[in-house]
């Protein structure tokens, strides 16, 4: 008991306060970051807001109108399909490849790293142009499948990092040897040992891919356009037709992005199972 009060006395004595310049910097930073977002949310429920600093009235009318937009359901559905398919394809391609390179082909890791940096060096418009030019024959010309291929290229670095980090944290080589010594083949080791242990990494990578693809506009509008209208396309269309409805679409976009970010943080905080965890005596 005495030790506790002694410690807390030291703590309150020593707790530093932020400097004035820090407070000013952070306040301005928060203001700049949050004002556009909050304004959009308020704009979506504002009755009239072109003459005053605060809206002249509030209404949920625009949300009603948004749900009645003919393409509302189909674009949301398309976006979900696109995001889920991309995440799935990336999962199937990346996870086994990372495992393979990590355990059997460490020499190829630099090559893998370079290939994962490559998408950052290719602007999306350039990727779109090159894909549309070379695959200009039916059936894949300007098809959703071509779009998924482009999305996978664009989003795979986001899955790569978390999976590689998770793979290193669990010491996949030792686990593989242990599994194989008990008679499991590579596929069994991957499915029953490795993947369950790197699940937080896969989930946070997958969520990141999902939310990135969901909000993506450039590749979608340039490669497939109206043939496969996704939610961001509908949003841009409405910025020119009805600003208030466009605001409601923005709110929906932002909210889905927030939810995904929160999920990512929550999954990430659940921690990675390291070898140290598994062998620690409980």
């Amino acid at each position: 008991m005495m030790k506790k009060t002694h410690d807390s006395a030291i703590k309150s004595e020593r707790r530093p306060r932020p400097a004035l310049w820090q407070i000013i910097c952070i306040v301005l930073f928060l203001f700049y970051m949050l004002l556009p977002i909050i304004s959009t949310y308020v704009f979506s429920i504002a009755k009239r807001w072109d003459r005053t600093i605060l809206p002249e009235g509030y209404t949920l009318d625009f949300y009603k109108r948004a749900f009645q937009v003919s393409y509302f359901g189909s674009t949301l559905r398309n976006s979900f399909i696109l995001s889920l398919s991309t995440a799935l394809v990336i999962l199937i391609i990346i996870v086994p490849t990372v495992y393979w390179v990590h355990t059997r082909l460490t020499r190829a890791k630099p090559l893998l790293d370079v290939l994962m940096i490559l998408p950052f060096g290719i602007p999306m418009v350039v990727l779109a142009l090159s894909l549309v030019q070379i695959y200009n024959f039916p059936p894949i010309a300007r098809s959703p499948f071509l779009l998924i291929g482009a999305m996978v290229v664009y989003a795979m670095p986001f899955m790569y990092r978390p999976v590689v980090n998770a793979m290193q944290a669990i010491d996949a080589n030792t686990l593989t040897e242990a599994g194989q010594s008990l008679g499991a083949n590579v596929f069994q080791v991957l499915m029953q040992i490795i993947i369950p242990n790197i699940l937080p990494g896969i989930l946070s990578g997958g969520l990141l891919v999902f939310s990135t693809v969901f909000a993506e506009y450039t590749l979608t509008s340039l490669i497939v356009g109206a043939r496969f209208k996704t939610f961001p396309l509908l949003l841009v269309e409405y910025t020119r037709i009805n600003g208030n409805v466009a605001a409601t679409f923005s709110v929906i976009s932002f909210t889905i992005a927030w939810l995904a970010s929160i999920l990512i943080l929550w999954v990430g905080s659940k921690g990675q199972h390291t070898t140290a965890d598994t062998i620690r005596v409980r």
Partner: protein
Amino acid sequence: MIIKAKSRKARSAWLGLLPFLLFCLVFEIVPVLFLIRGSFIEKSSGALTIQHYVDLNHPLYINSFLNSIKLSGLTAFIGVVLGTFIGYAIYRWPSVHAREILTALSDVTTNFAGAPLAFAFVVVLGMNGVVTQFLLQYFQYKLYPDFSIYSFTGLIFAYVYFQLPLMVLLILPAFAGIKKEWQESSQSLGANTFQFWWNIGIPILMPSLIAGFTLLFANAFGAYATAYTLVQSNLALVTLQIGYMITGEVRQDVGVGMAMAVLSLIIMSLGIVIYQIATLRAHRWSKS
């Protein structure tokens, strides 16, 4: 005999990489190579030519490149300077909880680029925007018509929005490389804060600052959606021009678009290479 067995195993191991390599080839590498080749080919005759690159010597394309480079450079510079200050403010914030929240906020907001962000800025700085109204009513200051969110200057505000948090995220780990002991020992030798930063702090941070600048530059140079929503045909930008060639909004020989694309690739690759080198140099300090 042993050598033979080893090479057989190594060769079959590379087979495991095949699906991934195939995918990259089909959707990434071959199309880009095809693009580069196409930029040197005359569409109707199939002959090799550099005419497309010569055609780039046209006011529209020259302006596009100038505008894109100016926009990227400006927003990268602003992002680096402000981001470093804000990053340091976060780094030295006493509460761990607050630091985590601010870092998470940066993580989220840097991915907000695109149409929703552009639209949000119209709500804030548009003709009837929140800030526009505020300046009019409280400061009697008419933002319009000298300023417009649908312009180069307006685009700067929107771009800085996602450049800032990106720099914050990049620079935060770099501060850990500046040991507190160095600050204390420089103080004991009589240096003031400014001298410390000028002679020790900034040189150590320099690789990270350069890495940040090039990444922010590449980020802005390749951006499309935000610009498309805000300025469209009011401003000539490289990404927008290439976009018009794809959608066919511009009746132009695709070869020119390909030449523009190849030039963009060169600029971006340069940026990525500089970024990689700078990051490797930066790691030198954080490792010690």
